[in-house]
């Protein structure tokens, strides 16, 4: 099991993000992808292995948020091809043009002094 006095699941994830990698875990006991990163797998397994996603996925659902006095903002749930889901946004296209089933690819947003780098997506062309 991970030694939480040495490294945390979120800390390890952030280290990957800083290298431009979207990392996830696989439970070696059953082969299932695990996300968000954990010290213990769902069901109690401790045989978790870190992997780097190829970064290709499909939009599972999407919304456009209308904050007052701001441009519309996309928020979406993305199913990565490796079998895990995360929240993100699709950039570089009109938020209202993001559709369920769209193929997307990851890009690392640089973040800032408070926010570590985090994955966003752009259109990969096509739909599923």
């Amino acid at each position: 099991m991970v030694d939480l006095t040495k490294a945390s699941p979120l800390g390890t994830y952030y280290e990957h993000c800083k290298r431009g990698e979207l990392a996830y875990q696989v439970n070696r006991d059953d082969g299932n992808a695990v996300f968000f990163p954990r010290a213990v797998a769902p069901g109690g397994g401790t045989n978790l292995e870190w992997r780097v996603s190829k970064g290709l996925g499909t939009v599972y659902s999407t919304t456009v948020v209308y904050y007052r006095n701001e441009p519309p903002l996309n928020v979406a749930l993305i199913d990565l091809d490796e079998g895990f889901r995360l929240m993100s946004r699709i950039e570089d296209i009109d938020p209202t043009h993001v559709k369920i089933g769209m193929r997307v690819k990851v890009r690392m947003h640089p973040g800032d002094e408070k926010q570590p780098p985090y994955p966003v997506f752009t259109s990969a062309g096509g739909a599923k």
Partner: protein
Amino acid sequence: MSLKRGSIAVAGVAESDLGQVAPHTSPIDLMAQASLRALDDCGLKVSDVDGVLAAATQARYAPGQICEYLGIKPKYFDGTMIGGSSFMTHVAHAQAAIETGMCEVALIAYGSTQRTVSRAAASPREYNPFETQYRPLLPISAYAMAAARHMHEYGTTREQLAEVAVAARQWALLNPKAWEKEPLTIEQVIKARMVSHPFTVRDCCLVLDGGGAMILVSAKRAKTLKKPPVYVLGVGETMSHVSISNMPDLTVSAASESGPKAFRMARLKPADVDMLSLYDAFTINPILFLEDLGFCPKGEGGRFVSGGAIAPGGKLAVNTSGGGLSYCHPGMYGLLVMIEAVRQVRGECGKRQVKDCEVALAHGNGGVLSTQCTVIFGSDKTL
């Protein structure tokens, strides 16, 4: 050991003052006011209460805070806090406590001043390193994505979502305590200010102050009190996730488990239900819950609510109070969801009364479709 159908009954229910309360009113003031009114409803006194169950976003130690305020030293207390459906779990836990003799008179209480202090102050969100940076407008955006997925998979339409809000408004116009007083059309819902696509502000529940209370006792004791007992026939509690990113299927809520559990205990089926009180935080909720609780097949909820089917005079009475959409939504709405169901079984609902209402189902929802809890209430004829 399992809970016994009809072993306890609701003896008293009440709302606190609702809507907009005076500056500096506290959530506990509203809890206390509702508690006293619920005790008056059944003819009991504060000194009779020996079990206290409470939850509130503005009171981390809710059971202790209402006990401190009212001077109660409870034998049994429970502060289960799982969002808006907390109070349905409180009913189940009160039933276990009363059945096993841990208490005799259980008080469930809630209060919120979210309209006065603002939602941001009343329910600050915890930081989530996998969601917060994307700035979803929670909880609205989570439900909006469930609606978008339901529309994508099942062809549910924008108009069908709006039907839910219009039906709620029509019921609200029959309820003197409802916040909304003006009629609403499908077109008005769709053309209202967009908040989180596909939801406009009219797809979203009200943001109001308010609270409520419920008194539960054994079935035997309930018969000796002022009002006709409303029996707890079945309960079902489930939770499936906390963050919307972790909800397995956005078109299927855990009501698909809590409903069957409650029906099994009640030895009833959906066709036996005369009235439903469904937690309508957003217009997609009743559509999902009608499907998941077994009132229509999965994917048919949008078509089911069309043509005024759940409005006054429709084929199924749903959210007769006007719901969280048009009656009152004080942050966590689950207790008010049950109070309307209890009043319908008692026959106290005036112009909005459902004829011969013997069985009422109250369904609570918490978080972002996260916790789902169902309670089935019945009159003495159902025992």
